[in-house]
């Protein structure tokens, strides 16, 4: 028995694939000048060694290592995340590019003997009782790729620890992940405890079990549908958006 599958199913992913390859699309986005171009390419390909090599050359030629972070590494990474947002490259590419970029940043910091001011700090965690942490890991990676400093509290994090970390780190934003209907209620408690303490940090919540209706039920909550919404929200906060505006932006349902 055999079949002509085109009569019974459609591989929409194949149909929708862009004519250009990711490499071609990335190439069009690389900066014109060297070594920025090679570094961007090395980031795209996730080749740490090539990133460092490029940076070394640039510094030799007199570039300011700290300026390289903002002017070369971050825009190079942005090519990758933009292509991810467009559905052209997949998550592992982002992860590997981020690894390469982060090594580059380390190298620049060492070369400069000083650290740049990060764009902002975000605390990430998985709800108490919940071990499903891959979504959180992705969120953290995408935030880092976008230039944010991430304090990753890990999974199964007691409410007390979340509150303590927020007090200690004063982040611009807090994220929570929960994949079980039993664990997501911790988010409400975190919200209440934060408000009690007078802390109005935007608290983006996502993960399989979580939905917008639930997140809307507590004041600081903003629903995050997919991991890429986390850096988007951080950017929006930097751009001065308040809680109400953030809800407006991210509550699409």
């Amino acid at each position, binding site marked *: 028995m055999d*079949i002509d599958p085109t009569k019974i199913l459609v591989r929409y992913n194949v149909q929708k694939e862009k004519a250009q390859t990711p490499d071609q699309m990335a190439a069009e986005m690389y900066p014109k000048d060297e070594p920025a171009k090679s570094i961007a390419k090395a980031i795209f390909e996730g080749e740490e060694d090539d990133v460092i090599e490029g940076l070394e050359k640039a510094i030799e030629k007199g570039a300011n290592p700290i300026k390289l972070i903002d002017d070369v590494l971050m825009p190079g990474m942005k090519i990758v995340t933009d292509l991810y947002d467009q559905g052209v490259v997949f998550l592992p590419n982002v992860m590997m590019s981020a690894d390469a970029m982060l090594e580059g940043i380390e190298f620049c910091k060492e070369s400069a003997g000083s650290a740049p001011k990060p764009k902002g700090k975000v605390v990430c965690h998985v709800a108490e009782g919940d071990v499903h942490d891959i979504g959180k890991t992705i969120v953290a990676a995408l935030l880092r790729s976008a230039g944010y400093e991430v304090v990753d509290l890990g999974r199964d994090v007691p409410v007390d620890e979340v509150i303590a970390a927020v007090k200690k780190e004063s982040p611009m934003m807090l994220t929570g992940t929960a994949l079980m209907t039993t664990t997501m209620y911790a988010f409400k408690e975190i919200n209440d405890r934060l408000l009690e303490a007078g802390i109005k940090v935007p608290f983006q919540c996502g993960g399989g079990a979580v*939905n917008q209706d639930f997140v809307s039920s507590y004041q600081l909550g903003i629903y995050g549908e997919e991991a890429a919404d986390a850096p988007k929200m951080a950017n929006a906060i930097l751009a001065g958006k308040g809680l109400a505006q953030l809800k407006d932006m991210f509550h699409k349902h």
Partner: protein
Amino acid sequence: MVKRYTSMAYKNADDMIFGTAVHPVKAELGLEVGAGYVTAEVNYAPRPEAGVSKEKLVSEYRKLTTDIVARAVQIGFPAVSLETEHVEQMTNNPSWGGEIAHVQKTILEEYHEEYGIKCGLRHTPGDIREDRDLLALIGDKYDTLMESFEAVADGGADFLSIETMGGKEILDYAVLRNDVPGMIYAIGCLGGMDMEMIWTDIKKIADKKGRIAAGDTDCAQANTAMFIAGGLLDKNLAHTLAILARVLAGSRTLVGYEAGAQGPGKDCGYENTIIKSITGCPIAQEGKSATCAHADVMGNLTMQVCDLWSNESVEYHGEFGGTSVQCWSQTLNMDAALMNTAIQTGNAKVLRDMMALSDKYRDPQGYILAYDNAFKVGQAIVKDGNDLYLRAKNAVTETIKILEASKKEGKLIMSRFEQNALADAKASVDALTNEKDTFMSDSLAKYKAEVKVFRPETNYKW
């Protein structure tokens, strides 16, 4: 005057198959029904809270429509159809239903454009023609109902349906009293008369707006009987009587097609196999993947000759696997994929027969609705197709005959109780006149006396 069916669309029962109908129909966004493949028809109900305002209701339907099509694309399904069964507010305020149809159709258009997925949309206004304990089939509510059909047709609904209620005031009384002549009167005669009126008007609207008058279902009567009959161990109605209500529905629901409906017939019309055998129009059906909505004893069998495959209804809410509409739509689409594979590999009849056999001997209802027997019932109906009473009576007589004959074969084992109910039914039907006029006037007198909510003068066009 409507054009009665006096012959069968199919020569043999064996010619009937899922996915293909003699007269396929075509929706706007590429979907064809009955044209060689089976498609899922997804049904849903808004959460109670969503009913408080028009805005909330629109937003609920926007969400669930997107959920369904998005999931279909994720899994690679080539087509999907949606059915919106109105909650009362949507029909009583025709503009609500119309706007929701429009919002849904717009989403389907977007996905059709972006991915090429074939889509269909059915709207089923509620039969609002009642007033507390009384039916109010003709009058103001009728006019509002027709406005609702116009509005959803304007909004973009491809298929127009309704579950009409004519005869129900008598059925509710008769079914709890094993009163088979009363069932014939309720379903076959009164139900048919009401359908003739309303479907003539729905057909006009469909033609005017370029939509498809799809078809009715005897939900209000035959399904009521089926649900009262319940599972094997329920004791509220013999299943041998529930199937009599069903075959009567075959005669009744046919009237919609006689008034111009073209299918796909409504999912919960378990009489649709009979209808398809007579009309050759495509049908929707529901069964094992509609357990979210109800339990029946023929979950595979109803797939046997379906063209759309439905989940009847599920409340919109979250499940581990996504929202309820995503879950059930995926299950339906997978069932459809199996049927379409059977079609493409030349095994459709094998699969059809397995589906039928898996339930045929589970219950008298499945036995009669198995396509071979359903075909015989169809023949009995068209034999006197011009006489609403006689053809209904024929359907019952034929059904009793088939069930009695089954005893020889020995595969359908009926309980003594079911057999007795059948024997009583036979006795009461054998005693009936063959004259429509006699039957009609006798019944009118009888039920005016016995059923206090019966208002024949104001509810039916005599």
